[in-house]
């Protein structure tokens, strides 16, 4: 019998946000996504649990990141905000259904290949 061995590595970038994700902060987040994508790191989890405000510009940064990750065969998944205020923009725009939204980081990290 021949035995061939190898290792398959799956790397997921985890970004944890705290405070306000608004127009002022969205650019920094977009830059971080761009840096990961440029480096071929297209599996990203963004943990929104500790956010207390998200606006449509913050949402736009996440949507753009998700589209680009998916376009290159990866994904951007969210850990859902815990406050109603931070969750509101996702519900009003129906993006709570477009994103893969997990209740905790462990769930968001499960199921990559």
């Amino acid at each position, binding site marked *: 019998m021949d035995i061939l061995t190898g290792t398959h590595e799956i790397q997921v970038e985890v970004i944890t946000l705290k405070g306000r994700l608004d127009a002022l902060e969205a650019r920094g987040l977009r830059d971080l996504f761009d840096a990961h994508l440029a480096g071929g790191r297209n599996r990203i989890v963004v943990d929104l649990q500790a956010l207390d405000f998200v606006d449509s510009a913050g949402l736009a940064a996440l949507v753009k990141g998700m589209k680009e990750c998916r376009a290159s065969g990866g994904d951007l998944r969210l850990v859902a905000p815990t406050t109603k205020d931070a969750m509101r923009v996702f519900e009003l*725009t129906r993006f709570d259904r477009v994103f893969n939204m997990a209740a905790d980081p462990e769930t968001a990290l499960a199921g990559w290949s």
Partner: protein
Amino acid sequence: MNPPTTLTLDADFLSLRQIGPWLHTVLPSEDGEPNPAHGSIELAIHELATNSIDHANPDDGKLHLTAHINDSELQIELRDRGDFCEVEAIPVPDPENPQVRGYGMMIIEQLASSLTYERIDDLNVWTATFPTT
């Protein structure tokens, strides 16, 4: 009717962070608890003001907010000396086709019980009304 209170902001994103604290002073609170409508109203006015910065581009670089409050309603007026807004031309996002931008108006319209736009000379006047109870 209580007397109106006002907030004048520089038309930049950092200044928009004053909207939330200002609304806390304007909205009625019970037992020191924040008004339950605060989060919705902050998001709506934040989106309205963001649009003035992004699209109206005020000549004097200022946004003016006025709050009129009565027992059950809060009316917020946003005034800026920016470009005219062709309200009828604003597209509605297609729910089947997720896009990156273009959700601000949709958010405001869902949160406000009414929203009006008037152009008075070179002044844009947006008036949004919210239930507070």
